[in-house]
């Protein structure tokens, strides 16, 4: 865990403890730091602004109701609230007409893989600016939804591997293994596509 994340989590735990004993200022500070990541997570997955705002509101109401239940041994407050955000997005799509009212109770999370991945597209200028990035984007689209969600949490939300595992309710070992395999795949498939940029090893050997 890097120092920045470590300090952030420590700060959140202190505020949580203080807010739990009635310190309103601590609660406000905690909310202030958690709002943006949650809003970002939701708004990148739910395009309708009104829906996204409603979902964010629900998440924080739930956060308040379950405030006492947070267990620091199980992970950070950030991952705790992002896991709530993930569940809220899943619930939203389960209930939305896109999936049909009749299927409300039967939709599998795996079917919603795509909506759990950030849908934000970079501006057009960014799209054409870097061919390598486009190759990577295409490569990502070919990957299974669960892996793409892992990447979204890791690189979109800036979570560590352990935190990704906590949000997805998986073991850290499983997440590490998935990332290790994916990294290997990227090296094999994309580094071959971009051989024009020599790796450091190649430079040293030359």
């Amino acid at each position, binding site marked *: 865990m890097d120092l920045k994340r470590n300090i952030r989590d420590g700060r959140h735990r202190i505020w949580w403890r203080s807010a739990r004993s009635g310190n309103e200022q601590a609660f406000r500070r905690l909310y202030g730091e958690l709002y943006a990541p949650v809003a970002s997570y939701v*708004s990148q997955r739910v395009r309708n602004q009104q829906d996204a*705002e409603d979902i*964010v509101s629900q998440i924080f109401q739930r956060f308040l109701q379950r405030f006492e239940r947070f267990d620091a041994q199980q992970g950070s407050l950030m991952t705790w609230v992002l896991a709530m955000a993930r569940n809220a997005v899943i619930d939203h799509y389960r209930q939305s007409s896109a999936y049909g009212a009749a299927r409300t109770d039967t939709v599998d999370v795996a079917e919603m893989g795509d909506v759990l991945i950030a849908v934000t597209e970079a501006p057009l200028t960014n799209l054409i600016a870097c061919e390598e990035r486009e190759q990577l984007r295409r490569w990502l689209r070919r990957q299974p939804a669960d892996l793409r969600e892992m990447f979204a949490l890791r690189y*979109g939300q800036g979570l560590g591997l352990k935190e990704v595992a906590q949000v997805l309710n998986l073991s850290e070992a499983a997440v590490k293994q998935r990332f290790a395999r994916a*990294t290997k795949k990227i090296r094999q498939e994309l580094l071959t596509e*971009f051989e024009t940029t020599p790796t450091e090893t190649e430079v040293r050997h030359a």
Partner: protein
Amino acid sequence: MRDRDWQQKMKEIHHTENEHSLRPEHRDELEHRLLVGYQNLRPRNRRWLMLLNFKNRTARFAVAGLAMLILGVGACSTSTTSEVDLGQALTIEVPEGVNVETIDNALSKFLETKPEIQDVTVTLRESVAGGAVFELVLWGKEIAPEQLVADLRRAVPALADSDIGTKALSGSFRETYANKIMREVFMFELDGETEIQVAARIMAGLKSRGLAEGVVVDVRMTDDATGITIDIRPEDEE
């Protein structure tokens, strides 16, 4: 493309962290709603300083009939300066490489062993040297800074050689003698005491100031113990 290149590009693909498309005012609107919910769910901060506010309902005091207090009229109109000891501010430097989480847990455990500390405000920042700095504001009366730091170093060995700075939090305010005595005698927090015990406590406070002679203290609490009426009158009015 090198490893760090694809990781950077992966971040770019997933867009900048924490950007969102919600209305800017949504944050404040939601905060307002949450605070209402929070205030209903949580007890207010019980920092002792709040007790200085006579109108504060959380102090669970309804002091009635104090106007007939047996203080002299002269005392009521003369003001005095009262010093208040609010606590200590601590700055703790944590060297780079020391796990902040471990220190945080150890600090929490340590502070829980200090009954004189009534409330704690903590901020954490990165230091210029690359480590971290804990800034603690410890609210409470009679916190001895030297003893506190010595105890802290003993309780948290990782801080044995850390720079720990202390600064007293204190202040003064002007008030009438009547207010001063009211504050000293009546402003305390109740914790399950009976009417008789509260009356005895007030009487003891008056006695220590030489004001108890010929005085009767009568305390009545509401059934839910959220309201108290304190009646103090000369003995001969009984």
